[in-house]
């Protein structure tokens, strides 16, 4: 059994509590209100319903089709700093496509130069605006990059990489701050495909638009936020269950992880008892309470303190998220919700929202 090794009375892991205390000892010993210069926010807006409403007012059916691209695929999530001098117009995108194609080609056969205007390339990259991800003002919120490779012996091309730059919610989240005109924000990059073109495409983007692209990872705190926020978002029948997977400390042999699965309705009921459904704002305390309730429940049955383990993967009806930055969105109408949240996290991580 896993439990006994851990300390018996530890209701919830320290890290989650740390941020909610708010009082802290200052240098001269007096108690002082904690001034939040660096910490993660104590509450987040729950964007799902709001976004859904807006989409449904338009022709939802037509809108959903392109968004199907996102669903039921496993993506790697990257965070991207603002792109310098990135342009969205067709001519620019065409130029980017051509240059990235040449670049991939030159990487494939080192030492052979590739002209910027040639046609017979082995690898072909394509930049295009993703239909379906457009904000209120008509600006594109998604750019899709596909890299395809000519297959030997066959006529068709094989797609080796799909990458999507997304800026869903970015305008809203960064309204307050000015960034010089030359920057374009696409804080999130979702990518799936072969390793080599993925790496090369990232290097190319970094070198052309002077940005940094870094794999996002989600610590247990962020994962528990996602579980709490996305569990009660939709209440329809036949939704996928909520699942939490914890890894066990390495000192324990023979047991690598513990998975806890809860029916969606039950989890939803629990969340609604904690969270006030009228408001969009989710509080840090609510998230902590939700997780604590689930973990207490688990302890009641199995006598295992999940809080002593590390949460490393979650599943909600909306999406699967893994600690190492893997993501699988399960519902078309949840795409924007997930992307919005990722944008938020990326902006926090890149130090752009203070």
């Amino acid at each position, binding site marked *: 059994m896993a439990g006994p090794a851990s300390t018996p009375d530890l209701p919830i892991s320290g890290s989650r509590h740390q941020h909610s205390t708010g009082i802290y000892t200052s*240098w001269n010993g007096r108690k002082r209100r904690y001034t939040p*210069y*660096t910490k993660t926010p104590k509450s987040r807006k729950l964007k799902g319903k709001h976004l859904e409403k807006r989409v449904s007012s338009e022709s939802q059916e037509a809108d959903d089709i392109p968004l199907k691209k996102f669903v039921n695929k496993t993506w790697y999530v990257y965070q991207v700093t*603002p792109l310098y001098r990135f342009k969205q117009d067709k001519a620019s995108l065409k130029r980017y496509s051509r240059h990235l194609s040449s670049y991939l080609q*030159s990487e494939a056969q080192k030492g052979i*130069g590739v002209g910027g205007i040639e046609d017979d390339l082995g690898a072909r990259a394509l930049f295009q605006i993703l239909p379906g991800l457009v904000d209120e003002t008509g600006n594109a919120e998604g750019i899709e990059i596909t890299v395809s490779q000519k297959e030997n012996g066959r006529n068709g091309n094989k797609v080796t990489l799909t990458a999507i730059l997304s800026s869903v919610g970015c305008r809203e989240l960064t309204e307050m701050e000015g960034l010089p005109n030359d920057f374009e924000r696409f804080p999130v990059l979702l990518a799936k495909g072969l390793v080599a073109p993925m790496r090369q495409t990232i290097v190319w983007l*970094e070198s*052309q638009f*002077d940005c940094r692209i*870094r794999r996002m990872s989600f610590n247990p705190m962020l994962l528990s936020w996602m579980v709490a926020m996305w569990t009660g978002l939709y209440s329809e029948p036949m939704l996928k269950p909520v699942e939490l997977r914890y890894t066990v400390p390495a000192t324990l042999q023979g047991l690598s992880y513990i998975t806890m699965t809860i029916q969606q309705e039950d989890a939803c009921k629990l969340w609604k008892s904690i969270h006030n459904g009228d408001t969009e704002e989710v509080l840090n305390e609510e998230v902590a309470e939700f997780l604590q309730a689930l973990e207490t429940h688990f302890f009641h049955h199995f006598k295992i303190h999940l809080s002593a383990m590390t949460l490393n993967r979650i599943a909600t009806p909306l999406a699967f998220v893994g600690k190492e930055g893997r993501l699988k969105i399960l519902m078309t109408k949840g795409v924007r919700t997930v992307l919005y949240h990722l944008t938020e996290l990326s902006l926090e991580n890149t130090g752009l929202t203070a």
Partner: protein
Amino acid sequence: MSQSTSGKKKRTQQEAESHQDANLDEQIDYFTSENSNKKNRNHVELSLALSKVESVAKEQGLTSEQLITLLDVSASGKFPVSTSSKLIKCLLPSRYIPEEAAIKCTSWICSGTPARELQVFLLKWMVLTFELLGRSEKLHALYGVIFNFIENDSLCPHACHLLYKLTRKDDVLPFRVNRLLKLQKKVGSQSYIIGLLSLYKVYQPHLVVLSVPASKRIFFRVIERNWMVEIRKARERSLPEEGRTGATLHTVNQNTGVTQISKKRKRDVIPSAVTAAVTGERLTDLSLVGSQLSSIPSEQIKSFEELLNSVDRLELPGQIASVLKSVVLQHAVACYQEDQISQRLGFWLYETLHEEILDQPFSSNKARGERCLKLVINFTEFLQEGIPACENFLVRYLHTWNGSDYRPYILRLISRFRLYDFPKLNDLILEPLRKLFFCSSVFCKCQMIHTFTMMLKNFVTVEIPRYQAERGKGEGSQTSSEGDKFNISMFTISQEEFDFYGTVEKFIQFVDKLITVAVMAESDHALLFHYLLTFYELVSELRCKYNTPFVCIPSAGIVYRALLSSNCVQISRMCNIVCSYRREFSSWKEASKTADVWQGTRDLIAPFNQYILDFSNILWRNKAFKKDQVVHEPFLSVIPSEVIDRTKVDGPNDGLSVLRHIALVGYAYQFLKETQPKNKKLHPNLIQPKNRDLYLEFLQRHRLEGVLAFINTYIKRTSTKR
């Protein structure tokens, strides 16, 4: 061949040198004259003439006319190939090669008159002697002609090399790129084509995409070693006279072409300075290709002179972070003062430091992170201000820092931290450091105190003047000329107003508390004392040197521990510090009449006078434990007299005087040994009051000038009375 040359060299030297020129011209005439024997290569006259020309050329070089004459002779195919090639190798100038020669050479190659082998020789000669060309404007006009040579298999490598040296931005045209690419398809991946293409890529990155494999980083190989040596000698001959104009520029270019960056790792942390292909400025003005004012890619800038010449049309690298590697480009970036530049750098820095350091807390390979931090530190020191993105990173990192990873670097960065309102500074930096301070070793504590000293220095020398300048700028424009001096900030940071002197004062108090405890915890560790005394040596000069409106004094815990320490250096330095406070307080008093200083300092005068009284009572007046009639309680009088009696110390009141203080008694002994007759039993009391001045001077000679300074400053009159 070289052996025989040296033999001949000696012989020629022995001959009358005055005849040489005339002699040489005669020999050259032999080559030019119509009726000389052209076919027989063993002909005596021919070989004599050849050896003469060779030796003179290698010794002192040929004049321009001689050079051109011989070039014509060798290229005209009058003599057999072996002779002509020997002649070409002799074409070494006495100072520099006239451009006309290079042009003639080109036209000879075009004419097809010389044999194929000779054409290669001629082209090689042009490549090798390129740095000796006086100027290359006209030769550059023949760029298109030379470009055609690449079609010839045997000429191609050398043509590429020559083009590499000649190419300017406006030479890089799409059709040339295409021809090179086509050629590459035909002959495969050849290093010389890669070399030329990679230069084209530098100038016009959107025209050609190329990734250079590590094995082909050396584009042009030098084959003719001996020839190369001769040419290098010729260059040495001409360089000192020529000065540095022109020639250095070419050599620098050559170096970068031939010895590319060594293959350190798969991918360097810092990107290299390459212009971005799809975002570069040139896309906006494609029509301007060929104009004189085309921009210069930053890869081409290698020296400060080059930067100065092209600072107005420099094209910054696509990844701005690459300036971290180049001191020259740092100057450019710092003087542009554009928001986007600092933003781009900021984004990059934050992400990279996060990735290399924060995300890998357990990695054993710290080399990448260290390299990164070193470059950031260099840049910070260059700018003399903290980089905001880097500060954000530091703040985040300090929350999880274990106090040992990258310690020297992290502390260096902290010492350049910006000045903020104290609560903020405390939360961001001081509180995390305080936590680490008390659970780390004494050496780490020393490093941290040193960091605090550097921080304070940075505050008073750089940060406060900058804030004052900014504030002055906001109020009126009169101070702008003075403000410009300090307002060289690369970053625009909106800061709410705060009392920066207040922050500094609180900062000093914070450090004071920290070190008071540390000294106790480490039981007066000598090294620790050194660092805290250094800190106070700075604090005790703030008013006089940096014009602070207040004076800060060390707390009693530190002052008395130094006074009673068993280390003479600590006493002396503390005495010195106490002395400099006299200047501080009098300066403050002077200023307080005009009332632009803080009145709070007045409260410090009484405790400070107490320090002085105690120092003089203990060290000089032998009243250590006596109750004095002066207002305050003497420091040591708290000890009841019974306790002192019980110690049975002989003369407790002078037990801590300069003569008998545990830290100084050794010096007293040494002093007596030098002054008293041998075999006399020595006791500190032997130093008579009249000799005390001698003793103090003795101490001063042993670098303990603080004691003397203290007595001179505060109790000089009494000592003269005695």
